[in-house]
C-alpha cells in the first residue's frame, strides 16, 4: 500500500452518476478524484441507447440547470431527437434522444479530462477506509491508498454483479466487465442493508440483416431541439428508429421455454422492475395481449449494431435466436450480442439522508443505481446532488436538498430515502404531486438560482438566466394590465378562430386564457416594443394560460412546506412516544425523517401516527418552554 494522494472528494465509479458527481464536486471547488474500472467505458450505456423521455427528460434539464453535463453531451452526440407528448399539456412534455453510444462516452471523457480540480484515474476500489464511523479514503486493488473526508460510491450494477442467460450464469458487471465483490462485502460488514435487484437487456442485431420494409419508420423531429439551455448548435442529420411487433409465434416459443428462462427457472432471484419487464414477464402477466411493440434503435452512427428494445430477456441464446425469427423484419437478423439479465447488490436507500450521505458512515455518499434506481437520468440526478453535497461537507458549505415541488430530482430522492423501493426505481411523471410546476420548459427557472448559490452555475449563465426571468415577469405584468378593447381587429380574429366576440374590454391575460387564443395572437393585437426570445414567449403563454392550475398547485406546495418545515428534534426517541403503531415506530426509527412532512410520507406511518407525533413534539416544545 502506498499513499497516492489527498483529496476533498473521491468518486468511485464513472458511470452516469459518477460523472455528474465528480464534475459538480470539482466545480464547487473541491479537489476531486474519480476512480473507475475502465477509462474506455466512462458514462457507458449498457442498456438502451437513449436519454430522456417523460419525467426523465425533465431530469436531464434539471441536471443542466444545476450546471451538469448530461444534457450538453447528448445534445452533441445524439442521432435523433424527439419532443414527446406534444398533443398534451405543457406539464408532461419531454425530450428524448437516441444516443450515439460511443460518441457519448468519448465526449464525456473529454469533458472530465478537461475539468479543473478533477483527477481521473483507472482503478478498482477494493476497500473503504472507515475510522470511528467516518470515511477516510479508499484503497485500490493495486494498493494505491487515496485519502479524503468524503467518498461517493457510484458503482451502479457492478456490486456482486452476476449475468444470467438461460441456465448459464457468471460473475460480471454489465457488458462483461469485472464485477465488484469486495466493496459489497465491506458495506455489509459495516452494517448496511443490501438488497438484490435485477434488470435486463435485449439482444442486439446487425442492421444489414434487418428487413426494414416490414417495419414502420420512426423519424426524429424536424424542428431542432436541445436539452441544454446552453446548446446553440443543433444536429440536423438524424437517423430513424423502426417499429415492429412480436406475434403469436413469439409468444408460443416463450410459453414453451419459460422454464429455461433464468428468471423463471424457479431459482430465487433478485427483484426486477415492473416498468422494464422482460419479454417473458410481459407474456406471463398479460397473456391475452396478442402482440407487443418492438423498437429497433441504432446504437450509433458508425456501427451496425441495433438495439431491439422491448425484447429484454434472460432466455438461453438459442431461444433468443428463435424469438427474433418470429418478428417481422428480424426473421434473418444476425444476433450480435445476446440479451441477458443482470443481478446486483443495491444499498437500501432509506439508509441515506436526503443529501445522499449514508447515516451509518459519516462522509460516505452513494448515488445512482447502487441506491436501487434504474436509468441513466435517475443516476445523473443523484450524482449531481451527491457531488454538490460531498463538496459541501468537505469544504464546509451549504448542502443541497431539493424538495418535491422544486425538481423531479427532489421527488426521486425523497421517495428513495423516505419510502425506499422494493424494485429498481424509475421516475414517472405520476410520482410527482406537482408536475405542473416541474415542467421541462422551466427547469432553468426552478434551479439556476439554486445552482448559482451552490457555485455550480457560472456567472455568465446566471446573468443570462436573470435577464430571461425579468423579461418573462415584465411581459406577464404587461398582459395583466393591458386592456384589449372590442375593436375590429379583435372581433375579426375571434371570428376567424371560432370564438365568441368580445362584449367589453378584457385584460390581455384573460383573453389569452381562452382555449382558442395563443400568445402569438396577443402579440399581433398588442405588439411588444421588444422582440422576445421564443423561450420567453413560451413561458409567458404557459404562466398565463394555466395560472389557475399553477396557483392551485402552489397552495398545495405551501401546505407541504408547512409540514416539511416542522422539524423533528434530532435526538427524538420514538420508543418514548406512546400510541404510535408498532409498524410506524419501526419505520420512523429506521428512516429518521428530518421533518414531520417527510415522516408523513413514509408508508406504514398513518395520519393518526402523525397526529401523535405532532402532539408529542408539541408537548416537548411546550414543556421545554415552561422549563425555561
Amino acid at each position, binding site marked *: 500500500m502506498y499513499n497516492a494522494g489527498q483529496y476533498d472528494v473521491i468518486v468511485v465509479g464513472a458511470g452516469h452518476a459518477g460523472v455528474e458527481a465528480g464534475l459538480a464536486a470539482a466545480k464547487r471547488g473541491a479537489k476531486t478524484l474519480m476512480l473507475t474500472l475502465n477509462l474506455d467505458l466512462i458514462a457507458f450505456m449498457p442498456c438502451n441507447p437513449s436519454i430522456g423521455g417523460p419525467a426523465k427528460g425533465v431530469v436531464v434539464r434539471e441536471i443542466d440547470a444545476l450546471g451538469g453535463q448530461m444534457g450538453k453531451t447528448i445534445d452533441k452526440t445524439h442521432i435523433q431527437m424527439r419532443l414527446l407528448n406534444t398533443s*398534451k399539456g405543457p406539464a408532461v412534455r419531454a425530450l428524448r434522444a437516441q444516443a450515439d453510444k460511443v460518441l457519448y462516452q468519448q465526449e464525456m471523457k473529454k469533458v472530465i479530462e478537461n475539468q479543473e480540480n478533477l483527477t481521473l484515474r483507472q482503478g478498482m476500489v477494493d476497500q473503504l477506509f472507515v475510522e470511528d464511523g467516518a470515511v477516510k479514503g479508499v484503497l485500490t486493488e493495486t494498493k494505491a491508498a487515496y485519502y479524503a473526508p468524503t467518498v461517493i460510491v457510484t458503482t451502479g450494477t457492478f456490486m456482486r454483479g452476476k449475468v444470467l442467460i438461460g441456465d448459464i450464469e457468471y460473475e460480471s458487471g454489465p457488458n462483461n466487465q469485472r464485477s465488484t465483490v469486495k466493496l459489497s462485502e465491506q458495506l455489509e460488514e459495516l452494517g448496511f442493508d443490501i438488497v438484490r435487484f435485477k434488470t435486463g437487456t435485449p439482444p442486439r442485431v446487425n442492421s444489414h440483416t434487418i428487413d426494414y420494409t416490414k417495419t414502420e419508420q420512426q423519424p426524429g423531429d424536424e424542428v431542432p431541439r436541445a436539452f441544454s439551455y446552453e446548446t446553440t448548435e443543433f444536429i440536423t442529420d438524424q437517423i430513424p428508429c423502426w417499429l415492429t411487433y412480436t406475434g403469436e409465434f413469439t409468444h408460443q416459443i416463450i410459453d414453451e421455454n419459460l422454464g429455461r428462462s433464468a428468471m423463471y427457472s424457479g431459482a430465487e432471484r433478485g427483484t426486477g422492475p415492473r416498468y422494464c419487464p422482460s419479454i417473458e414477464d410481459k407474456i406471463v402477466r398479460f397473456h391475452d395481449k396478442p402482440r407487443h*411493440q418492438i423498437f429497433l434503435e441504432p446504437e450509433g452512427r458508425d456501427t451496425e449494431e441495433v438495439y431491439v428494445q422491448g425484447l429484454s430477456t434472460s432466455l438461453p441464446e438459442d431461444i433468443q435466436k428463435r424469438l427474433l425469427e418470429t418478428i417481422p423484419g428480424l426473421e434473418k437478423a444476425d444476433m450480435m450480442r445476446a440479451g441477458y439479465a443482470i443481478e446486483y447488490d443495491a444499498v437500501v436507500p432509506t439508509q441515506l439522508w436526503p443529501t445522499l450521505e449514508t447515516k451509518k458512515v459519516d462522509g460516505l455518499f452513494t448515488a445512482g443505481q447502487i441506491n436501487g434506481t434504474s436509468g441513466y437520468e435517475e443516476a445523473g440526478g443523484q450524482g449531481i446532488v451527491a457531488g454538490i453535497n460531498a463538496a459541501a461537507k468537505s469544504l464546509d458549505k451549504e448542502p443541497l436538498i431539493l424538495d418535491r415541488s422544486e425538481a423531479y430530482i427532489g421527488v426521486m430522492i425523497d421517495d428513495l430515502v423516505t419510502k425506499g423501493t422494493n424494485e429498481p426505481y424509475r421516475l414517472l411523471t405520476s410520482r410527482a404531486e406537482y408536475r405542473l410546476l416541474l415542467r421541462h420548459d422551466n427547469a432553468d427557472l426552478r434551479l439556476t438560482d439554486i445552482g448559482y448559490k451552490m457555485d455550480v452555475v457560472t456567472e455568465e449563465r446566471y446573468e443570462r438566466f436573470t435577464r430571461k426571468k425579468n423579461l418573462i415577469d415584465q411581459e406577464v405584468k404587461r398582459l395583466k394590465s393591458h386592456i384589449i378593447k372590442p375593436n375590429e381587429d379583435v372581433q375579426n380574429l375571434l371570428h376567424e378562430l371560432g370564438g365568441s366576440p368580445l362584449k367589453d374590454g378584457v385584460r390581455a391575460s384573460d383573453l389569452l386564457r381562452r382555449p382558442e387564443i395563443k400568445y402569438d395572437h396577443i402579440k399581433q393585437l398588442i405588439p411588444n416594443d421588444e422582440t422576445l426570445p421564443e423561450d420567453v414567449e413560451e413561458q409567458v403563454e404557459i404562466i398565463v394560460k394555466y395560472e389557475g392550475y399553477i396557483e*392551485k398547485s402552489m397552495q398545495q406546495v405551501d401546505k407541504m412546506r408547512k409540514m416539511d418545515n416542522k422539524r423533528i428534534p434530532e435526538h427524538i426517541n420514538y420508543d418514548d412516544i406512546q400510541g404510535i403503531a408498532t409498524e410506524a415506530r419501526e419505520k420512523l426509527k429506521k428512516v429518521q425523517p428530518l421533518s414531520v412532512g417527510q415522516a408523513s410520507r413514509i*408508508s406504514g406511518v*398513518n395520519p*393518526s401516527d402523525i397526529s401523535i407525533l405532532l402532539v408529542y413534539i408539541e408537548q416537548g416544545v411546550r414543556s421545554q418552554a415552561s422549563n425555561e
Partner: protein
Amino acid sequence: MEQDTITAISTPIGEGAIAIVRLSGDEAFAIANRVFQGKDIYEVDSHTIHYGNVVDSKTNELVEEVMMTVMRAPKTFTREDIIEINCHGGMVSVNRVLQLVLREGARLAEPGEFTKRAFLNGRIDLSQAEAVMDLIRAKTDKAMNVALKQMDGRLSGLIRQLRQELIETVAHVEVNIDYPEYDDVEEMTHEVLVEKATHVKKEVQKILQTAKQGKILREGIATAIIGRPNVGKSSLLNKLAHENKAIVTEVPGTTRDVIEEYVNVRGVPLRLIDTAGIRETEDIVEKIGVDRSRQALKDADLILLVLNGNEEFTKEDAALFEAAEGMDVIALVNKTDLDQQIDMNQVKHVAGGSPVVTTSLLQEEGIDELEEAIANTFFEGELESADLTYVSNVRHIQLLEQAESALDDALNGIEMDMPLDLVQIDITRSWELLGEIIGDNVHESLIDQLFSQFCLGK
C-alpha cells in the same frame, strides 16, 4: 406519559334516567375510593359493578346511592383505569357527584377528551375516533345505527369503489403520458373523462344527500312548538314525552322560557322545544321568553304550530303562520273536546300544503295522527331503506363536498379544453379527498394501478 385524571358526565344532560360520571386516568381508582362507601376499588376484579354510596368526605353527607363500574387498564376504552359512577337521582345529584370528584383531584374533561385519549393511547384510529365521538352524541337508536354502520365500513366500501373508478381513469391518463410511444394503449378522451367524472360526482352527491339526514339523526330534529298562550303547547310536549316535563296551567303565559326535551317519534329523533306563547306583552320576563321563542322558531327544522279550536282564528295565529313560512310546519287544532269556534277551512287555507291535525291533548286524541304526520315529513319512505349509507360526520361531509367540487373543477377544465394531464390534477385530487375519509391516501397505489392495468416497458 403521565396524564392527569379526567372526568365528565358521560350521558348527555337531561337524557334518560341514568347519568354516568366517568373518570379516566392513573388517579381514577384513588379518587373513587375517597368518595365511595362500599368495597375497596383496588381489591375488586376488573370489569365488575358494585353498589354503594357516594359520600362527601368533608361533611360526611350522603350524596347519592350509586352503582360503580370498575375497569382496569389497559382493556378499557381509553387504555387507562376507568371508573363509571351510575347515578339515578336526576341532574342535581349527578352534578354533586361530579363536583365531588373534581374536588378530589380530577379535572373536567374537554369535549371528546376521552376519545382523544383513546386515540392518543393507540386504542382507536382517527376515523374510528370520529365515529366514536358521534356515537357518544347519538341521541336515538337510529343514530346509533348510523354510527355503527360507519364504523363497520359500509361507507368506506362505497367510497373505495368510487376511488377505484377514479384511479383506473387516472392510470389511463397517466399511461398515455409516461408511455407516449405505446400506441396500443388507446388515448383517453375528454368524452370518457366527462362520463367518469360525472358519474362519480353523482354518487358523491347521493352520499351527501344522506348526510343531512345523518345530522338530523345524530342531533335530533329541532322541533319548535309555537302558538298563542294557553293553546296547549306544554301539554303537547308532555304528551309526546310521555312525562310531565313542562308545567301546564290554565293561566296564559305559564311557560316563560324555552324548555327542551328529546323524544323519539316512530324512529324520528326530535329535540322538542316548548316555547313561551307568542304575544305582545308588557311583562319583562315573559317578553324575554317570547323573544327566545322567536329565535327557536328561526333555528327549527320543524314547527308544530298549535291553535285553539275553542276560539276563533286570530290575527296572531295568522302572524305565526307567516313567521313559519317556508319551513316544515304541522298545524295542530287542539281542544277538539270543547266547542269548535275555529273555521277549519280558513286554517287549511292558511296552512297551505302543510298537514293539519286535530287533537284533544286533554283526552289524548289525535296523537297517533300527529306522530304519523311527523314521521311522514322526515322519512318520506326513503330514510328507512336498509342499504342507505349515512355520513353523519362533519369532517366527512366536508371532504365529500370538497371532492365534489374537485370533480366540478375537472369538468370545467374539460369544458375549457384544458389538456387531460391538467384535468387529471383535479380528478386525482378528488381521489385523494375521498381517500382521506377512509384514511387511505397512498400515492404509490397509483403506480401499482398503472402497472397492473397496462403492459409497459422496454
